[in-house]
């Protein structure tokens, strides 16, 4: 289905056409799963895609029928993606004091192509600390030994790196 067809369905949905809306949400669900599978750990994909469908429902009045539908949907999807990255960062930051091991996230992060692309823009010390602790699942102590840094410095690098990652993701979304 083309973007123009999505637009037609959305305009119909705004007037209360439930059949058109059902078709649209079905299409959007597929597109969103594909969108997030390249950007988030696989365990989160369905959850975030459903959250976006709920948002599309709640904010459907903000779509201007005179404009293309794609950028509107992409803006919402990106907003929720950044939101999720921030939440990941906050959640991970909370763990900093307790050992920082997050093996499930590490495995998932391997599949997050865009996340990797963003990480390549971090300082090497920050990217290495995040990779070792968050992706490979090493403890902070093990990472510190491998990197030849103090434990405190590894924690600081992870914290700053994740914050930078969130900012990069947001900046990238507004350049689009």
């Amino acid at each position, binding site marked *: 289905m083309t973007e123009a067809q999505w637009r037609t369905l959305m305009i119909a*949905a*705004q*007037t*209360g*056409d*439930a*059949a058109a*809306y*059902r078709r649209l*949400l*079905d299409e959007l*669900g597929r597109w969103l799963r594909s969108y997030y599978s390249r950007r988030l750990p696989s365990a989160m994909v*369905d959850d975030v*895609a*459903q959250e976006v*469908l*709920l*948002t599309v*429902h*709640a*904010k*459907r*009045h*903000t*779509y*201007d*029928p005179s*404009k293309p539908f794609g*950028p*509107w949907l992409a*803006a*919402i999807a*990106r*907003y929720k993606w950044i939101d999720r990255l921030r939440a990941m960062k906050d959640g991970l930051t909370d763990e900093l004091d307790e050992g920082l091991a997050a093996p499930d996230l590490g495995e998932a992060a391997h599949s997050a192509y865009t996340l990797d692309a963003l990480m390549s823009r971090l300082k090497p010390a920050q990217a290495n600390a995040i990779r070792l602790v968050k992706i490979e699942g090493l403890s902070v102590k093990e990472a510190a030994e491998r990197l030849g840094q103090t434990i405190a410095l590894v924690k600081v690098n992870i914290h700053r790196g994740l914050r930078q990652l969130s900012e990069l993701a947001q900046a990238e*979304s*507004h350049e689009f």
Partner: protein
Amino acid sequence: MSFETLIDQLAGDLVPVRPRRLWVDVGIMLLIAAIELALLFAIGFANLDMHRLETQPTVGWRLVSLGVISVAAGFAAIRSFDPTYSAKGSIRWLAGIIAICVVGGLFLGTLPEGVSALLQRLAWTNGIGCASHIALLSTPPLLGLMLLGRRGAPTDMRRTRLLVGLAAAAWGAFAFVFACPFNDPLFIITWYSLGCTATVLLARYLLPRIARW
């Protein structure tokens, strides 16, 4: 919950909606501003003293500067409630407008000679009164913009909250010009800026909590 169940529920909840219109939101804000100004005149807080307008050269500068900043920031803030709108360019323009307005004001007065002259001209007890009045008068447009923001879907909250704060603050200062007896550009730039900063900080704190989606 499966996708099918969610889609069934959302389609079942569907009711017709009227798409958000930029000019309706602009109209609501103009109405709030007009009502506030009318009330200030009605209770006698503000007055249109022609003698003061003629004898105080800064009145015209204040009204034009704050009016332009308020309208430009308000329009950009309302536009930024659209998820596809990027406010980066608007903020650059606004920064330029604000700089021109401030520099324009400095040309209307002279710089103080010495610290004691500076303190005297700043008249901080009066200044705090001015700043707090501006912050208070900014409240109605601030609330209005935050409610419109909640109804919209701003995707760049950092810039949106700055625009909302600037628009409300500039409007509060604009309304206060009709009640402000002071004419020294140094006093005005200092204390009006402080009053506006308070509103911008309030918007920075409140908007993400109110308009988060």
